[in-house]
């Protein structure tokens, strides 16, 4: 609900999304709606199709069929301009190992056309406590440090929709705290956030809603918080 009491318009609307690999139908009829300020936790067993759904929403792969796929009321994710509104965190860091954190973020700032990029990168690195290591190659970072820089990469361009595929995997306590803070801030800033995890308890304090991917379809799930 918006502040005026009327239901908020969906930021992301996906209806009847279908995807199959070979003969195996991974997504049979997945429908999903996210409103600004929502943080939805998507659970499901390994191989249920959570990552496939994230990849479709991020524009990495195309759905075989979908009745509706809109972001801010406009079709996506085939449109490059619409992908500007999406941030993606994967369980892999999605950073170039041989480049430093600064060089990686500078590259992504360039392709996402981030204004005042240097200033933005500096402030993000400061927030995640990585300023002193910003010029070291990413391959020399621990898993937690890599993931922290990866989160910076995903929010660098201030996206409307944040997609996170198993973001808590292999994180140390400090990195989990930073990630949780950033998710809370995203919710406060009216971003829509979709997090996939096989362990819903890991992010239960952040969630506004839980969904479960079962037999290629999304169903609501209730947890005691």
């Amino acid at each position, binding site marked *: 609900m918006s502040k005026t009491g009327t239901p908020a318009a969906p930021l992301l609307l996906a209806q009847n999304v279908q995807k199959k690999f070979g003969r195996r139908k991974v997504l049979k009829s997945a429908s999903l709606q996210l409103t600004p300020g929502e943080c939805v936790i998507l659970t499901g067993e390994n191989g249920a199709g959570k990552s496939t759904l994230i*990849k479709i929403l*991020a*524009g*990495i*792969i*195309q759905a075989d069929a979908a009745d509706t796929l809109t972001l801010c009321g406009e079709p996506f994710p085939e449109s*490059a*301009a*619409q*992908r*500007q509104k*999406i941030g*993606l965190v*994967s369980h*892999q*860091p*999605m*950073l*170039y*190992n*041989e*480049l430093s954190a600064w*060089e990686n973020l500078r*590259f*992504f700032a*360039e*392709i*996402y*056309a981030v204004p005042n990029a240097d200033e933005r990168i500096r402030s993000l690195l400061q927030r995640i406590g990585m300023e002193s290591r910003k010029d070291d*190659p990413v391959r020399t970072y621990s898993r937690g440090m890599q993931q922290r820089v990866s989160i910076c*990469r995903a929010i660098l361009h201030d996206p409307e929709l944040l997609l996170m595929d198993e973001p808590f995997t292999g994180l140390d306590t400090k990195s989990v705290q930073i990630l949780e803070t950033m998710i809370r801030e995203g919710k406060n800033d009216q971003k829509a956030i979709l997090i996939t995890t096989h362990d819903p308890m890991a992010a239960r304090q952040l969630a506004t809603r839980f969904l479960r991917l079962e037999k290629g379809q999304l169903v609501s799930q209730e947890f005691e918080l």
Partner: protein
Amino acid sequence: MKLFLHDLIALIKKDLSIEKHTREIFLVMLIFALSILFILNFALDTEVKARSSGAAGLIWVILVISGQLSLNQIMNLEKQGNMLEALLAAPISRTAIYFSKAITCFLGMYGMALVIFPLYSIFYNTPLNSAHILWISALGCWGYAALGVLISAMTIQTRMRDILLPILFFPVIIPLIVAAVKSTGAIFQGETIGTAMPWISQLIAFNVIFTAIGMISFEYIVEE
């Protein structure tokens, strides 16, 4: 168009920056090419005339094989850490990704050609006295890069990519290499550019066809 060029330049700069840090592409190609050049010195006829007639073929064999090392490496950059997915999720066109990879591969291979041609001339006392070699080798290198990146993108997701790449790539590249060898050979032997024109036309046709196929199909290849 302005946005396309901006993204293209950013992608190429990134590849060159990684190369500056690792030196895994050009240096590896150079060492490999020089080793073959050195081995050939013992294997070949010492007579200058015999060497001149086979020079074009030998130089292109060196370029083709060392170029394959760069193809493996250039696409492998995006395989590590799921970088290809990061690029696909970014607001850039797939065609920009394709061209950036083809241009990086071209720069490596053409740079290699600019080193190998004069070195061959010095080592083997073979006269290379025409500037036409510069643009003919550029045509050959671009065709190689345009098709090579496409096939490398196909094989990069497979477990047997190092074996699959040459098996799929070399049979298709034969018309380009034949045209490059024939046109370079004609120039080496002091013939006019008109004599080599049928082969140069074949080179141009190959470049146009495979660049167009790359632009159209790269998107589907990387998304599957």
